[in-house]
């Protein structure tokens, strides 16, 4: 790890000021990803601004309904919060599908959004990576790319976003609240993360000196017909090869509202309005689900080792929609897939 200066932010405005005053500084909260990246020398900040003591740890019910989650709420507190378990079980399930108990105890809500890809070449500083070092090339294209993306890729980057929590937040139409030098703004979760395009070094649309302060969940919570189905190489404590968050509203066997978000397949949580439109107004059955899966994957492209993900994604979408329709969400402890 490189040597660096350390300072504590006194409040959110102070954090923004300190960041603006030192272009090479980074915020640190839980640190579970950043400290690891610093040990690999992927990140070499000259200063860390400690935001972990800021008063952003509340989970509150705002007057208009929904739920507002402070950016420093640990992942485990969010997953096990009674209101989240009761009203947003999809979010709770997705968080508990990710990482380990120890990591969830440290990792913050805001930091989960900002974690970086787990692409093998991003971590390996001896290899080219356009995300780590713009213009150096992509070693994953033509390399070992089993875990890489099949949707929304560019010819310079095929990394995936590793979060489970963010997939559920995208499905739930959450909003990210941020504060920067220009004041406060809200970003739709689906617009927060970016596709790689020709600027893969930018994971998100967060401004240089902006800080995430909260996540807002809308009132509609899909507590009956939902699932988070995560497929991975180990039964626990592994990143998704493919993950699907599915949420439906069903009346008399007909789908009235559909949300479908994929993880492990793209540079951001993957929502596809056309696929969701295919589901609405149709009967909740496998033929319908298969049509939606075909729409989601119409432009899917493999890079060799990850070709299997296209068929895996198709099957996982169908199974997840089936679980959601049946009201039998995937358990995150009993790993049998029903």
């Amino acid at each position, binding site marked *: 790890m490189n040597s660096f200066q350390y300072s504590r932010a006194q409040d959110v405005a102070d954090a923004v000021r300190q960041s603006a005053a030192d272009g090479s500084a980074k915020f640190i909260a839980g640190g579970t990803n950043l400290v690891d990246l610093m040990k690999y020398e992927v990140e070499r900040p000259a200063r860390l601004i400690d935001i972990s003591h800021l008063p952003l740890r509340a989970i509150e019910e705002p007057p208009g309904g929904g739920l507002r989650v402070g950016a420093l709420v640990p992942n485990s507190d969010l997953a096990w919060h009674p209101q989240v378990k009761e009203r947003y079980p999809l979010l709770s399930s997705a968080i508990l599908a990710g990482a380990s108990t120890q990591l969830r105890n*440290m990792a913050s809500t805001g930091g989960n959004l900002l974690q970086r890809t787990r692409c093998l070449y991003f971590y390996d500083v001896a290899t080219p990576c356009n995300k780590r070092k713009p213009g150096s090339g992509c070693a994953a294209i033509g390399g070992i790319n089993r875990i890489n993306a099949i949707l929304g890729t560019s010819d310079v980057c095929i990394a995936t976003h590793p979060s489970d929590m963010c997939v559920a937040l995208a499905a739930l139409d959450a909003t990210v609240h941020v504060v920067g030098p220009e004041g406060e703004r809200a970003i739709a979760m689906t617009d927060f993360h970016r596709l790689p395009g020709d600027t893969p070094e930018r994971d998100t649309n967060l401004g240089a000196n902006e800080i995430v302060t909260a996540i807002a969940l809308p009132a509609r919570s899909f507590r009956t017909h939902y699932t988070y189905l995560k497929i991975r190489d180990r039964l626990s404590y592994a990143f998704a090869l493919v993950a699907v968050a599915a949420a439906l509203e069903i009346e008399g066997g007909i789908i009235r509202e559909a949300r479908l978000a994929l993880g492990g397949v793209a540079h951001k949580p993957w929502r596809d309005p056309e696929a969701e439109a295919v589901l609405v107004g149709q009967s909740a059955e496998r033929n319908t689900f298969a049509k939606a899966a075909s729409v989601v994957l119409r432009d899917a492209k493999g890079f060799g080792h990850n070709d299997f993900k296209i068929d895996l994604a198709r099957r996982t979408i169908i199974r997840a929609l089936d679980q959601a329709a049946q009201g039998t969400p995937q358990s995150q402890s009993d790993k049998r897939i029903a």
Partner: protein
Amino acid sequence: MQQISVALTVNGVRRELEIAPWTTLLDALRERLGLTGTKKGCDHGQCGACTVLLDGRPINSCLALAVMQDGSDVTTVEGLARDGTLHPVQQAFIDHDAFQCGYCTPGQICSAVGLISDGRARTRAEIREAMSGNICRCGAYPNIIAAIEEAMKAT
């Protein structure tokens, strides 16, 4: 070199340190406080050997910067026994032969103590899932789970 004052309560004793900001909690415990029960395995948050209880909750001490834990309460495996009597989880690990080489054991025990105190895992499947951040390369998992189940019943 920037040195920062940090006060921690470690195993019930207040400790004050002047440390460089890049010192992990793991290195502070082992190299500065001489508490070598907590192990450095992967040093990347993947194996769980460095697990300690921070304000009662299991965390990976290898990914925690010590300067950020000012004012916190840290319990390591050395702090679990009381008056010469092993913690029930420690005794259960012995009774069930829940280790072979023992390198992962301090982390396993700290995770198990956290698991029992938060009360979220009840079934065997839930215990396995909650303990998945602690790797045992000897493969003592069945005995580890049995030890935790027994310690849960006893508390």
